[in-house]
Structures are given as C-alpha cells and as structure tokens.
C-alpha cells in the first residue's frame, strides 16, 4: 500500500511536469516580472533603476493615459450592455426555429465569431469605405451625408464597438441558446394553459431562469472588452491612434514604440488590477444569482 502511494506521486509528478513547466515559464514568471519592472525605469529590453511608485504617480498627470482609461470605459459601455441584449434577442429568435433550418440561421449569426480579427477588419473597412463602401450607398439613399467613419474622432469608437458586437455576438448567442434549451418545456406548457401572453411568459419565466446566463455573458464580455486592442489598432492604421487610445494600445505604444518597459508595465498592472476586480465581482454576482434562484 505504501509503495502504491509513492508510485502514485511519482506518476503524478511526471504527468503534471510538462504543464507546470509551461505555466511557470510563460505565465508565472512573466506575471511576477510585470509587477517588478513596473517599479523601475527599465527600457523594453534590459535592466532599469528602482523608481518606486514613480511610474504610477506619473500616470495621474498623463493626458494620454487618461484618454486611454476614458476610451476603454466608453468602449466597454458601448459593447457590453448592447452586445448582451442583441445576443439575447437573436437567441430568442433563433430558439423558435427547428432542426436544420435553425442550424443554418445560427451559422449565419455565428460565422463572424470564427473569423480572425484582420479578416473582420478588412471586410468592414471595405463595407464602410468612404468612397466605395456599400454602407455609404445606403447613406446616400437615405439622404444622410457620408461619414469617413474610421477617420472621424466622434464615430471611430462607436463604429469599432458596432463591428465588435457583430464579431463577438455569436459566442453570447450560443450561451443564451444553451440556457434557453435547459428551461424545461413543461414550464412553458403550464404557462400556455394559463393562457399567459408572450410578454408575461418572457418576463415571469424566461428572463428569471436566464438570469445566471445573462450575468455570465455580461461579465465575460466585460472582461473581454476591457482588453480591447486588435480592432482599435487595425482601424487606426493611417489615422490618429492617440485619439483612439485604449489601455492595451497604450501598453503597446509605451513598450514597443517608445521603449519604456517600466512605464508600460505600470499601465499593464493597472489593467491587470481592473480585470481582477471585475472577475471577483463576477464571481460574487454569479453566486448571488445562484442563491436567489434557489
């Protein structure tokens, strides 16, 4: 028996070792280093002097950092709530359909989620192209003057938010569909016997039972959108990145374009803290929703 225990440990060690090695190298070590260099004035590559909280204190008076925080918050606001609601509406519509027909319609909504960001970028850059974009023809028909969407300070973030909702909705739709499927049909049958209206059925049955999924989708979106970079970077090409600055973009700019590793790390740590706070809130929210349901 004792021998068995010892082999079990040895086997466990062998099984866990490759994973642990990757995690220590590519996850734990970089995370620790990120905190450490945020207290130094290191360049991107190489050592730096210890400067204490200096990098963090500087952020307070940094107009571009402020813009990055504001833009990130603005972007999150424009994507998370509307994105969740749109996905819920689509899921409700799709859940009414049956069989192959449902699979086909779901595929139409889901396909954008599967595509790489650069494909999404090229397609929308084309669709909203100022001169030849099909969306501009629509504006012409409606008699609205054309807008150079991605060169406009006012429309840039809302447009990128719209593209992002289009791109990522498929994921949320799937979760909502899974949630809708797990609601027992008997409950709806009982409601139909009580001749409850469509709206009452939704408000009294579907919505409360779907609440845990809604909060899950909401917080996954929140965490995802806080890390926005790719779309903003791509659509800013040839434009004014500083106006469209978001947090990850600022980390990229400081570290890779201005060679200030320490300053960039301080921004990264700020983002890190934001995401951790949101994750913890998510956990609490889900637990709360779970308890309320019982």
């Amino acid at each position, binding site marked *: 028996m004792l021998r068995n225990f010892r082999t079990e440990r040895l086997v466990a060690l062998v099984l866990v070792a*490759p*994973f642990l090695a990757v995690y220590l*190298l590519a996850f734990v070590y970089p995370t620790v280093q990120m905190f450490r*260099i945020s207290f130094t004035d290191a360049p*991107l590559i190489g050592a730096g002097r210890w400067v204490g909280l200096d990098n963090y204190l500087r952020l307070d008076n940094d107009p571009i950092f402020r813009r990055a925080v504001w833009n990130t918050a603005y972007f999150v606001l424009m994507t998370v709530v509307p994105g969740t609601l749109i996905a819920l509406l689509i899921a409700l519509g799709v859940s009414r359909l049956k069989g192959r027909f449902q699979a086909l319609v779901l595929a139409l*909504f889901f*396909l954008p989620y599967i595509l790489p960001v650069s494909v999404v970028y090229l397609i929308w850059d084309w669709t909203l192209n100022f001169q030849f974009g099909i969306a501009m023809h629509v504006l012409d028909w409606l008699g609205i003057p054309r807008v150079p969407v991605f060169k406009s300070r006012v429309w840039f973030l809302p447009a990128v938010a719209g593209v992002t909702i289009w791109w990522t909705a498929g994921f949320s739709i799937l979760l909502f569909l899974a949630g809708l499927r797990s609601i027992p049909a008997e409950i709806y049958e009982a409601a139909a016997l009580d001749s409850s209206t469509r709206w009452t059925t939704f408000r009294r049955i579907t919505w409360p039972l779907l609440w845990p999924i809604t909060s899950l989708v909401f917080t996954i979106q929140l965490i995802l959108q806080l890390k926005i970079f790719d779309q903003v970077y791509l659509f800013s090409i040839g434009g004014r990145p500083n106006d469209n600055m978001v947090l990850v973009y600022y980390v990229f700019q400081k570290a890779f374009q201005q060679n200030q590793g320490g300053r960039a790390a301080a921004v990264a740590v700020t983002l890190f803290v934001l995401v951790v706070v949101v994750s913890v809130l998510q956990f609490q929210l889900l637990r709360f929703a779970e308890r309320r349901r019982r």
Partner: protein
Amino acid sequence: MNVMAAQRWDFRGGIITALTLVWAILWAFPLYWGVISSLKPDSEVVRPYIELWPETPTLENYISALTTTQIGAWYINSVAVAVGVTAITIFISMLCGYAISQLRFPGRTALWWLILASFMVPISALIINHFVLVANLGLINSWAGIMLPQLIHPVIVIVYKQFFDQVPKDFREAAVMDNASEFGILFKIYMPMNWGVTTALSIVCFIWTWNAFLWPFLSVTRTEMMTITVGITQVNDAFGVYYARQLSAAVLAGLPVALAYLFFQRRVTEAITLSAGIKG
C-alpha cells in the same frame, strides 16, 4: 410540424420568425459582400452602384494575392503554429487534468488554484514580459516564439478534469486489479472514453490560435515569418488601393477556420459552450 403545432401557429409568432430570418441575412451580408467583391475585377469593384453579383467573375485577385505576397509562407507559418499549439496544449492539459482528477499528490490544491487564478490574468497585459522572455531565449521570428505564450489555456485543463471526474470509478478499479499502469489507464481507458471532448477542444484551440493577432504581431518582424492573420494586415502598400486583392487575401485567411466550423459545427458549438460554462 404536427397538427397541434400548426393550429397554434399564430400571426405574431410568424412575424418574429420572419424578422429573425431577415436579420440573419443582413447580419451575414458583409461577409457575402466581402467574398463577392473579391471575385470582381478592379473596374467593377469601384462602381458607384451596388452589384450583388459580379458581371464577369474572376479569380485574378486571388492569383495576384498568391503571387505578389508571401501568403504561401504565411499559410505554412499559421498551420505550423496552430497545429503545434493545439497538439502541445491538448497533450499537456490532458495529462495535467488527469493527474488532478484521479491522483492524490502534494501540491494538488495549489496547482488547481494556479490554474483558476490564470483565468483572471489578462494575457494581453503580459506582452512586455512575454517579449522580453522570448527575446532572451532568442526566439523572436521563430515558430517556437510565436507558440510559447499561446500555450496558456486553463480552460482546457478544467474541461478535461471535469470529464475525467465523471468517468465511473469502477473502470479504474477494474484496471488496477488487472495491474494496469497509470499511463495504461489514461491512454487505454480514459482517453478513448473522452475522444469527443478531445476533438471538440482541439478544433476550438486550433481556431483560437489561427485567429490570434496581438502576440504573433509583436513577436515577428520579418515578413516571411508572419502568420496569415498578421500578414494580410501588414501589406497594404503592396496592394495599393486594390481593395479586391485585399479582400481575396482576407478570404484566404478566413477560409480554413470557416471550413473547420462548417464541417464540425456541432463540435465547435459544444466546445465553446463547455469552455464558457466553467465557472471556476
């Protein structure tokens, strides 16, 4: 549709279904428009009116995208990186998930917490230190360098652990009676029982890696080492204002993942629901 359901079919329900359909078509329209534009000759692409079908369909844009850019090399890089990341991630995550699920060993709880904690860390915040690490290892502009930071997928370990947890204990006990080794139990019993999960996770891991942008973009400076996702955004100059060629390059970049999805639709949706349903 049976008689009962047909009787209950109502006008407002029909409207909702019709709206959903119209919405779905509008939703997918930009994709259609991108593909259709890539099949038009330059002169047709820039016409001042909407043409839903190319007058003279042509593959000219595809040929020029394939011949004037290094798209072939990018394809090879993307395939190598995506296959490499998927194989390594699936393999090490399965071993680790099995150990956590079935074996008792010191540090098991700590390891579990490490995995759960890694959920919370925004990987994009680690770009600086990933770059320093990969540069110090001399791996900038290499497949290994593009792959290394992308091997962090805690979700996959967790999904495996949960599936291994669900395998009835009898199988294990019977195998232990037969003097099977732990590796035998894992590879001959647990893994075959969970082929479905492995397939599903492999496909989504492949799609995630193929689509990754930020890290491949940072870790590669030489054009011929780019992945296709990065490559097609970096060569605007090569194309000038030839929109149709850019779009054909986009179609080429999106095609493998779109096909993977269409072939394995059920597996993909299953894996995504699984990995999102994990609540820690």
